[in-house]
């Protein structure tokens, strides 16, 4: 198990290394002059030359690459050539907001998806099952940006139940200032008992979370259903029933235990997808997260920031993969494969 994880960590590190390298090389070969962006279009050629030195662009590519790697290990991702602020700082500001969105949507996807999937599998081939399957596949086929717009039209424009965009009402920041504990606004507001802000944050979060979780939710439901159907047809489920165990125990102990590992694994991976989907969702809901950051960076060809976000996403994804691996490794059947083959 330890060795297994060590190997996975090694692979993860390798993946990160490749990602950084490729992103760095791409940025280096793309015909856009960071120095020019750094000083602005009206700058003189002396200013540009100075900027080149300031940014280290006068050095050979290899040196720049090694410097970048060394700095990256120290947590320094360079300066945004647009905002002139450290990329790591900009990321640090954006990550908690995205994280909170992702966490809640994954939680929602897991709970609702699992429930829907179990119910659907248990009532196989009933109208409810058919509905749930069609619902899931429709959600999977819906572009999330469009779903966001539709949700806005319904809940904001027409019904006026929920705010259209944004993270919270700005005025509340002044009347009920938020104490930072974890950096995750909603969690902080709950911890500190700042209920007005918590409510407001939650209200703003409903639509983005719904949009973001819809895909994972549908995927979880489909996955749960199909695995559960398979599991329910296994001999050990027949055995559990044959030995007189109650249906509740059979379903929620014997069957689910064999389903949950796979679902959690899938969900860990789909959290990575959710992370990327925030790029779209944050754009629609003006959410000040990583997605917004990369959108802006891409539009401005702010390469240090693009590489930074890419590296962040890579780290997050590698970690999530690791979580998935651990979940898999905890399954006694895998231990068999590890030890016995």
């Amino acid at each position, binding site marked *: 198990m330890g060795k297994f994880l060590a190997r996975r960590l090694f692979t993860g590190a390798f993946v990160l290394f490749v990602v950084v390298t490729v992103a760095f090389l791409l940025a280096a070969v793309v015909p856009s002059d960071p120095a020019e962006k750094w000083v602005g279009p009206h700058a003189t050629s002396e200013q540009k030359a100075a900027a080149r030195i300031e940014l280290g662009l006068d050095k050979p590519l290899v040196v720049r690459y090694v410097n970048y790697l060394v700095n990256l290990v120290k947590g320094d991702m360079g300066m945004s050539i647009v905002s002139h602020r450290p990329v790591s700082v900009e990321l640090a500001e954006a990550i908690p907001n995205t994280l909170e969105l992702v966490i809640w949507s994954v939680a929602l996807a897991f*709970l609702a998806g699992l429930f829907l999937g179990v119910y659907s599998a248990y009532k196989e081939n009933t109208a409810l099952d058919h509905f749930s399957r069609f619902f899931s596949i429709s959600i999977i086929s819906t572009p999330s940006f469009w779903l966001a717009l539709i949700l806005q039209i319904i809940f904001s424009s027409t019904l006026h139940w929920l705010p259209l965009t944004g993270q919270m009402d700005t005025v509340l920041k*002044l009347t009920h200032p938020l104490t930072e504990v974890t950096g995750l606004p909603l969690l902080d507001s709950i911890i500190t008992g700042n209920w007005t802000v918590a409510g407001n944050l939650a209200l703003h979060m*409903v639509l983005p979370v719904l949009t973001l979780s819809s895909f994972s939710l549908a995927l979880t439901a489909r996955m749960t259903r199909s695995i559960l159907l398979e599991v329910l047809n296994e001999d050990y489920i027949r055995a559990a029933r044959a030995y007189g165990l109650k249906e509740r125990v059979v379903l929620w102990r014997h069957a689910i235990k064999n389903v*949950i590992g796979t679902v959690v694994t899938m969900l860990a991976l789909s959290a990575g997808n959710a992370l990327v989907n925030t790029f779209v969702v944050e754009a629609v809901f003006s959410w*000040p997260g990583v997605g917004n950051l990369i959108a802006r960076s891409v539009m401005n060809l702010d390469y240090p920031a693009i590489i930074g976000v890419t590296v962040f996403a890579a780290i997050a994804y590698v970690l999530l993969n690791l979580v998935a691996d651990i979940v898999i490794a905890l399954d006694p059947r895998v231990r068999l494969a590890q030890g016995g083959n």
Partner: protein
Amino acid sequence: MKRKLMAFLGLALAVTLLLPGLTGCKKAAEAPLSVTYVLYADPMVDWDPARSWAAEDVMMQNVYETLVRVGPDGKYIPLLATSWQESEDHLKWTFQLREGVKFHSGKVLTAQMAADSLNRTLEMGKSACYIWDGVEEIKAVGELTLEFVLERPLPLLNVVSAAYAAYIYDPSHTTEWYTAPNADGTGPYKFVSYVRDSEVILQKFPDYWGGWPADKKTFEYAILKVVSEAATRRQLLTNGEVDIVEQVPADDLAALAADPNIKISNEPSYQQLYAFLNTQKPPLNNKYIRQALSYLMPYEDIIRYVMLDTATQARGVVPPTLWGHNPDAFQYTYDEAKAKELLALGGKPNGGFKLLYTYTAGDKNEQRVGELFKDALARVGIELEVRGMTVDSKYNLARDPDPLKRQDITMLYWWPDNYDPQGYYYSQFHSEEEVGFNLGGYSSPTVDALIEEAIDISGTSIEAAIAKYHEAETIIIEDAPAIFIYCENYVRPYRADLMGFVENPVYPNVVFFYDLYKGGD
């Protein structure tokens, strides 16, 4: 164990979803008065007032101040300077600074600080520093007396009132401190907090030298809120959650105008849209063809359908409200017949060539102008490829060392960095060795000379400078290196109970929160 965990998660989720119902509806009644101005993009790119050269002025004009400001009517308003004097030879200016001006940090403004901050800006040499070209020295000659020594006569008031590179700030802070982000100026509002791509919060500075009128409900907080979705901006405004909105799509105006709670400020601005024609590449290296294109631009349709009458057709290089505008300049109109004649003169009677039109991807107006232009050109046998590009790639292409590789038509908006037409002429139509903003690659020695002369004498005689500019403009219009499409209005809808809002085209998009107050009950 697992079940308990799941139950807990479910409960937590339910609570967070239900909470709003319990608490969210009650808007805090005791909230201090605030004004919210909604922008479509984060204005804060560079926090250093010495380097800022983008939309930051929206925030900086409220937090920092310049010596002088130009009013909406073009008059100079004393700000940090109470009075100024120009020497006989036009080469020395003395500004008397206001007494008792406090920075947000509590420091008191001295002439030395003012000189130091401007000198720091000049040393850094970033942003719009070129406007100080011709200033030899800035020094404090007394506790509150600031002296500018010039190399040549300059219209210095237009420089010290510029929207960029002219702020007076506390020079003792480091560059790192400023980019932290921090701000320390003398303006009526002080900086409180910033969330990237979301908001900037400013708070009333109680020690503002101008004082705060007790009889008006001025705003404790001023909030710059970023909302990239036009629909959201509009909704926030109609819901009353925000007070002023920047750049509402013209399509929304009809709906907004019908709302009694909303007023719309619709004022001419200094912002003009130009289509630069590549004068160094066939077929647009031919004057007649360029003139023909100028006749083929469907100006009326653009004004009506793209801008929905929130713009006027441009007349010449300079917008009508800025000094230097020539109301008698020649104006091209859509005229297919004339265009055909000119095409024939240019050797392309039936068109039969293809042009590349590049615009900034995402700019709806540029895109639509392109689409309308494409239609118009198609009628005379010219094919137009309308291509959206990122700002960068568009410029990179336009600046390609080989003119033949550049695009044929490049779209560009221009507005001044200060209250002066010089940028319109010099940046766009003066010859350049390396392409900067002269995106048509236009080069005419006569025009170059006229522009240089105009700039030189603008320090001594505005009228003489205007005459020179007009002379150059006539040649430029004749040569048609660019199509002058329209001059935009700045359209800003705001809540009807917001008082004191006046559009000032010199400082585009800036809302001076100090002037605002809550009306009604």
